[in-house]
């Protein structure tokens, strides 16, 4: 193509060319930064939960009267909840899926320098598997007799999730192996492996969404009260929510801290990140729109300004496709310069942002995809008004003289 001619022609329009270059560069910077931020924020976002979260209710009552017999109250609650129509199973636990924030380190040997593995440990009774609708993959599930109620007694057995098994042992063959729940102490034997479910935001953020353990334990006491997880008949959860809450009112000495469906916790887990990333994306889309309108507008102005020129080129034997190619090439040169500068600007700001956000957000592949996308948008933005350019009749050269 006649790149040299185009460059010479651009030299005559230095000001506008540099305005366009800057505009494309900044647009690329905003778009890339937004996409990079969104990608960094949204990694591990909205993964499958592994449980029927729409049909599970979480209830968290808290006691404030130290004289209360918590163990007995919990038993009483469980009985009353189980009796409610639509409740299929209830289990008291110390953590809630999507919101398990107590991250623990476990070890595969007793030594001081043993490697640690991150996990969320759920203390619960034997019904948790049924409540969460988890599948037993290997070994055995806990029964009522495994559940320890004495606060001073220690557990000797544990169940772990499939992902946890893979994390601990490369081949996932974890059955009958021993895990230390604290450094150098509290060894427990792995007796069962169950299907994965989402733990909570902290481990999710580190890409360890499904690493969990279940400890058969029900030693509730004051200041260590359980949450109740209720598995509802499908479709009944919303309708029964208020009925369930009522059970806990009208009783002195405690209050109902939270009651909600797990789907709401799931939403909360992702929303902060999601809405933030979305805001940036929407903003940069608006900007891409503005820029493409600007480029289309400017091209159409150029077409008007250059009608005569186009006519001359046509008269000298330029085909319609030559005229379109001219505009596209001219714009691509500008776009290319803009994208090059945009990459530099993006790199500069992404280093700044990486420090601000305390994580490396740079992703060169993504950057190239964005550059290609912008180039494509530019081509479209030129092509549309360019169709008017090719319609300029060559006979224009003999007019107006």
């Amino acid at each position, binding site marked *: 193509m006649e790149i040299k*001619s185009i460059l010479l022609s651009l030299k005559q329009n230095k000001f506008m060319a540099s305005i366009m270059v800057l505009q494309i560069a900044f647009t690329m910077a905003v778009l890339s930064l937004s996409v990079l931020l969104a990608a960094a924020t949204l990694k591990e976002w909205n993964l499958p939960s592994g449980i029927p979260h729409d049909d599970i209710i979480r209830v968290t009552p808290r006691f404030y009267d130290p004289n209360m017999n918590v163990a007995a109250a919990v038993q009483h609650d469980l009985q009353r909840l189980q009796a409610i129509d639509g409740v299929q199973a209830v289990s008291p636990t110390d953590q809630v899926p999507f919101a398990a924030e107590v991250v623990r380190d476990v070890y595969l040997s007793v030594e001081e320098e043993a490697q640690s593995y991150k996990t969320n440990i759920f203390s619960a009774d034997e019904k948790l598997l049924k409540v969460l609708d988890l599948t037993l993959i290997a070994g055995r599930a806990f029964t009522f007799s495994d559940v320890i109620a004495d606060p001073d007694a220690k557990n000797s057995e544990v169940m772990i999730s499939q992902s946890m098994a893979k994390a601990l042992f490369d081949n996932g063959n974890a059955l009958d192996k021993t895990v230390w729940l604290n450094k150098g102490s509290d060894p427990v034997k792995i007796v069962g492996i169950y299907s994965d479910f989402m733990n909570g935001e902290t481990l999710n953020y580190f890409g360890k969404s499904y690493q969990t353990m279940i400890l058969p334990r029900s030693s509730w006491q004051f200041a260590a009260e359980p949450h109740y997880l209720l598995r509802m008949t499908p479709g009944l959860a919303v309708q029964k929510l208020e009925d369930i809450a009522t059970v806990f009112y009208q009783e002195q000495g405690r209050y109902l801290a939270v009651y909600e469906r797990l789907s709401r916790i799931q939403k909360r887990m992702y929303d902060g990140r999601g809405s933030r990333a979305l805001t940036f994306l929407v903003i940069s889309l608006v900007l891409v729109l503005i820029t493409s309108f600007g480029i289309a507008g400017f091209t159409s102005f150029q077409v008007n300004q250059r009608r005569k020129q186009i006519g001359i080129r046509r008269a000298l034997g330029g*085909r*319609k*496709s*030559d005229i379109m190619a001219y505009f596209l090439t001219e714009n691509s040169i500008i776009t290319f310069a803009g994208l090059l500068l945009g990459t530099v600007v993006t790199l500069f700001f992404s280093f700044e942002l990486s420090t601000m956000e305390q994580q490396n957000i740079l992703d060169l592949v993504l950057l190239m995809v964005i550059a290609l996308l912008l180039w494509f948008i530019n081509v479209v933005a030129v092509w549309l008004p360019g169709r008017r350019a090719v319609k300029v009749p060559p006979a224009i050269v003999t007019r107006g*003289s």
Partner: protein
Amino acid sequence: MLKMENVSKIYRTELIETHALRKVDLHIKAGEFVAITGPSGSGKTTFLNLAGLLETFEEGDYYLDGENVRGMNDNQLSDLRNEKIGFIFQSFNLLADLPLYQNIEVPLRYRGLSQADRKQRVEQALETVGLASRAKHLPTQLSGGQQQRVAIARAIAGEPKFLLADEPTGNLDSLMAQQVMELLEKINQSGTTIIMVTHDDKLARRAHRNIQIFDGQVSDLEYSVADDIVKRA
């Protein structure tokens, strides 16, 4: 070389039809230098547009160098213009953003010639019009006469079969006009057919043949060619 048979051009708007050209029959032979005259609005420009393949026509046949152009598509017309016709305009119509070299190169580009070939032709054309030293100048840095010589260089660089000149001296003073005319005659002598539209009788008389267009109709004016030769000498 150029043969029109029964060619008509009608401009239609919603309200009226204008017959810009009526049933033109014309035959121009290779090597002729033809001047076309006529009052404004008579159809000179339309004739030029048709002859130069800048516009299409509805009726008749037009043979350019033996090929009937009627019914050709836009791309074929473009290629034909590029190869067979060189244009020279009253207002020069140079591309203001480009230096002389690149201006002259434009039609060669469209013909898809190699870089070496282009270079050789551009340089030769510049040589012919006497502007070889100005190749890197922009059109606006030249006088009107020089600009028209650039336009001529561009027109002949592709070695077309014929030149279409539209009031080539209209924007020039008499001295410059003289130079441009001499250049055109030189080109004609080397074998290129030239069709020149002008309203200047004096210029027209320097051509081999005069054609008048009046109200869309074409007729030959009788001049003695010998007269002309005497005058020229």
